[in-house]
């Protein structure tokens, strides 16, 4: 019984729906017939009417018209969809996209469109797509509508604005309204728009404001408002520039920290400067390159694989350097410096012989390219953002190793007083090997990060030894926090000075600053406490 009722209701519903559709179909077909005219104005009128129907095919029809796929079949005098096939046309029914036969070229006539009509069609289609559930599509639709602004599109937008939830789309609509109102005939509207325009930093708004502020026909009141708005926009832009500089500074600083932190540990523990540190970074970068060559299909994964691989490769080379050379030179830091410099030359030339002296470019995976737009006019590149985050992760990991593991404890003990640590039963040889391996491995990891910013070449590491040593000296030897603070602040200072003095002078100033800084605090920002540090 119940089933019968349901069936009846369902039947009744189906009938009404199909009836309604039938009605709509008729309306759409009659409007389509109206397109079959020579006057573009009439075509525009019927296109508007099509857009106002609720028919599910209206977007398809308008798109077909825009793309020149609507034809009149002469035999039946009806409008059809057609695509070229061989010498003739393949015809489809407009309402359901079913094939209805073929025809020769002569027996169909294209419904032509001109540029004005095209603009109208685009904006109509965009208006219809405003109902799309995807906010990105809605945003694109709004942008498309701004190409042909008239009272109709604006009213559609205003109407849509009330229902809109997405802030990006709302902003875009607000901008279009401002731009439209800036051209309004009514001075009151213009005045209001000029005042509101100060919130918008897009270049379209700025050019219009500039035009208004320079136009001789405007009232002084509006002109003054325009200038105020321009000033406000400029202030916003300046603020963004400052934020951007800060970000660039932090980004450079994070590279410095990555480069210096390994050096800082080895210097702290063993009192030797590893001049091959930059070359160990270079090895890390080349590891990334090689892994990418081996896994050309998995770009995103290859980078993740490269991080541990570079750590291992550079770490092993570092241990080899320690076992092969440095252990013979303990207590003679200057000789160590020279010997490791020799190693750096050999590594450079080896890479040059194996991989060619030319730079290799390492591709960035998709999730690292592009940039993140925080607000309009302020965006930061993903690669730099990720490298900054990566630096913090590496730093945290290293900090945990130093503070929470047995090795870290021993490393700190040896840093403070080697002889005493040895007397307490710490195997300093083992600590030396592991510290050097750790420092070298971190250099390799830094190389992976670096490969995402610059090309990979044999000279990649050369420039970093002075910079990273400066960071170590500035922060205080063997002090992780000091390295972090020093690296980030040197990066910031460099980038802040750059626009004022130029890149080279900025670099020179930083070097001079550090030389002078050492005068005041020879042991860096965070010196080690106690008598052991002075020898």
């Amino acid at each position, binding site marked *: 019984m119940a089933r019968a009722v349901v069936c009846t209701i369902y039947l009744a519903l189906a009938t009404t729906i199909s009836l309604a559709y039938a009605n709509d179909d008729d309306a759409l077909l009659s409007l389509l017939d109206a397109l079959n005219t020579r006057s573009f104005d009439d075509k525009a009128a019927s296109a508007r009417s099509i857009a106002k129907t609720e028919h599910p095919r209206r977007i398809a029809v308008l798109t077909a018209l825009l793309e020149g796929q609507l034809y009149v079949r002469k035999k039946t005098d009806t409008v059809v969809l057609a695509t070229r096939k061989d010498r003739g046309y393949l015809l489809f029914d407009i309402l359901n996209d079913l094939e209805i036969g073929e025809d020769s070229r002569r027996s169909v006539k294209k419904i032509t469109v001109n540029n004005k009509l095209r603009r109208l069609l685009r904006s109509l289609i965009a208006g219809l797509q405003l109902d799309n559930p995807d906010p990105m599509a809605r945003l694109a639709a709004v942008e498309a509508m701004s190409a042909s602004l008239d009272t109709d599109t604006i009213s559609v937008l205003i109407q849509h604005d009330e229902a809109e939830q997405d802030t990006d789309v709302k902003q875009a609509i607000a901008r279009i309204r401002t731009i439209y109102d800036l051209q309004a005939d009514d001075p009151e509207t213009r005045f209001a728009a000029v005042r509101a325009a100060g919130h918008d930093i897009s270049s379209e708004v700025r050019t219009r404001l500039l035009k208004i502020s320079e136009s001789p026909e405007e009232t002084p009141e509006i002109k003054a408002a325009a200038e105020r708005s321009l000033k406000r926009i400029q202030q916003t832009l300046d603020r963004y520039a400052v934020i951007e500089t800060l970000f660039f500074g932090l980004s450079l600083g994070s590279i410095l920290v990555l480069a210096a932190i390994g050096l800082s540990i080895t210097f702290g523990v063993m*009192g*030797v*400067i590893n001049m091959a540190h930059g070359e160990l970074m270079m090895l890390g970068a080349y590891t990334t390159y090689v892994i990418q060559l081996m896994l050309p299909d998995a770009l995103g994964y290859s980078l993740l694989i490269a991080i541990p691989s570079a750590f291992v490769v550079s770490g092993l080379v570092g241990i080899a350097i320690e076992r092969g*050379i440095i252990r*013979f*030179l303990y207590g*003679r*830091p*200057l*000789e*160590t*410096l*020279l*010997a490791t*410099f*020799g*190693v*750096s*030359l*050999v590594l*450079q*030339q*080896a890479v*040059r*012989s194996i991989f060619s002296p030319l730079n290799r470019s390492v591709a960035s995976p998709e999730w690292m390219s592009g940039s993140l737009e925080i607000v309009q006019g302020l965006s930061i590149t993903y690669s730099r953002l990720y490298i900054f985050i990566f630096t913090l992760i590496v730093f945290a990991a290293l900090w945990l190793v130093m503070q929470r593991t047995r090795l870290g404890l021993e490393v700190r003990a040896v840093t403070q007083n080697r002889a005493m640590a040895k007397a307490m039963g710490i195997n300093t040889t083992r600590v030396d090997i592991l510290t050097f391996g750790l420092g070298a491995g971190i250099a390799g990891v830094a190389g992976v990060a670096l490969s995402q910013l610059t090309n990979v070449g044999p000279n990649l590491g050369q420039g970093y030894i*002075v910079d990273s*040593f*400066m960071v170590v*000296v500035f922060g205080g030897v063997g002090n992780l926090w000091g390295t972090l603070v020093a690296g980030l602040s040197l990066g910031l200072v460099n980038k802040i000075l750059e626009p004022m003095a130029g890149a*080279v*002078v900025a*670099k*020179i100033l930083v*070097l*001079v600053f*550090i*030389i*002078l800084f*050492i*005068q*005041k605090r*020879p042991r860096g920002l965070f010196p080690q406490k106690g008598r052991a540090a002075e020898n």
Partner: protein
Amino acid sequence: MLTRRLMNHEWGGWVLLCTLGVLAIAVPVLNLAVPQDNPFHVSTYTVTLMGKYLCFAMLAISLDLVWGYCGILSLGHGAFFALGGYAMGMYLMRQIGTRGVYGNPELPDFMVFLNWDQLPWFWYGFDHFWFAMLLVVLVPGLLAFVFGWLAFRSRVTGVYLSIMTQAMTYALMLAFFRNEMGFGGNNGLTDFKDILGADLQSDVTRIVLFVTSAFALAATYLMCRVIVTSKLGRVITAIRDAEDRTRFIGYRVEYYKVWIFTLSAVLAGIAGALYVPQVGIINPSEFQPLNSIELVAWVAVGGRGTLYGAALGAVLVNFGKTYLTGALPEVWLFVLGALFILVTVAMRNGIVGLFRKLRHG
């Protein structure tokens, strides 16, 4: 008396001085008097090359003075060499006069090229030879004095000082690469015509420059020898071996260090000034940290703390470099790298140390 103090048991020094004496007499004769087809003829190219080596030897001795005797490993001595060279180069630039490509009587070519309308103030006076020579001594000396005073007074020592000197030469390189500095940017100063009225390309000028270099090297050696054998030299060696103890005894360690560092820089500057007219160019690449550190290799290979060993090392390593970069360019950096490792790990006192071991068993 002085001779005995200087040369007692110093056979290496005798060899050096005698070789220089022989060269100063034989090379001019073999170059100018012996006809070109004679197998004993020494070509002008060789003369210039040897002159270059002599300048490097002088530079090496200047480094040995601070590193070998005072324990200050300077990785920026190339900067003093280059500064002396630039002072000389500026004099030579002013001597070109209207013979430059643009024929401007007032400005050097690169300034015309960069659309400068007048000579920068720091170029004034370089028309005079004596003024240029004064600055050859003053500029490196002053830089070393200021740098040394700042560094040694706050007791910056060891690797800190080494890296600081490297940073210094690195900063200078960056600065001199800038066109706005007024020193010819990355092209540097070149296309010199004559020195003190004599044509730089002529054989006689080259020979004179060679002989001057030989004398300068001999004088440098003797002067450094006087210093290191004097009481002052004993203090300096004491500072190398135990800085704190020397200070506790009552010596003002930093004064000695600043003094020896400045003197060494002046010597390096003079070497640079002799070097530039012979090679005919000075550019910012002379400031490269690599150059300075290569210089350390010369001294280490020859044997530090002996003065003549540094000269020997400079000539040997540079001879090897000239040969290898021509014959097997890829191998040179391997060899240089291996040299660094070898002299630090296995041959602490370089070639001289090897000889001494052989003599004393």
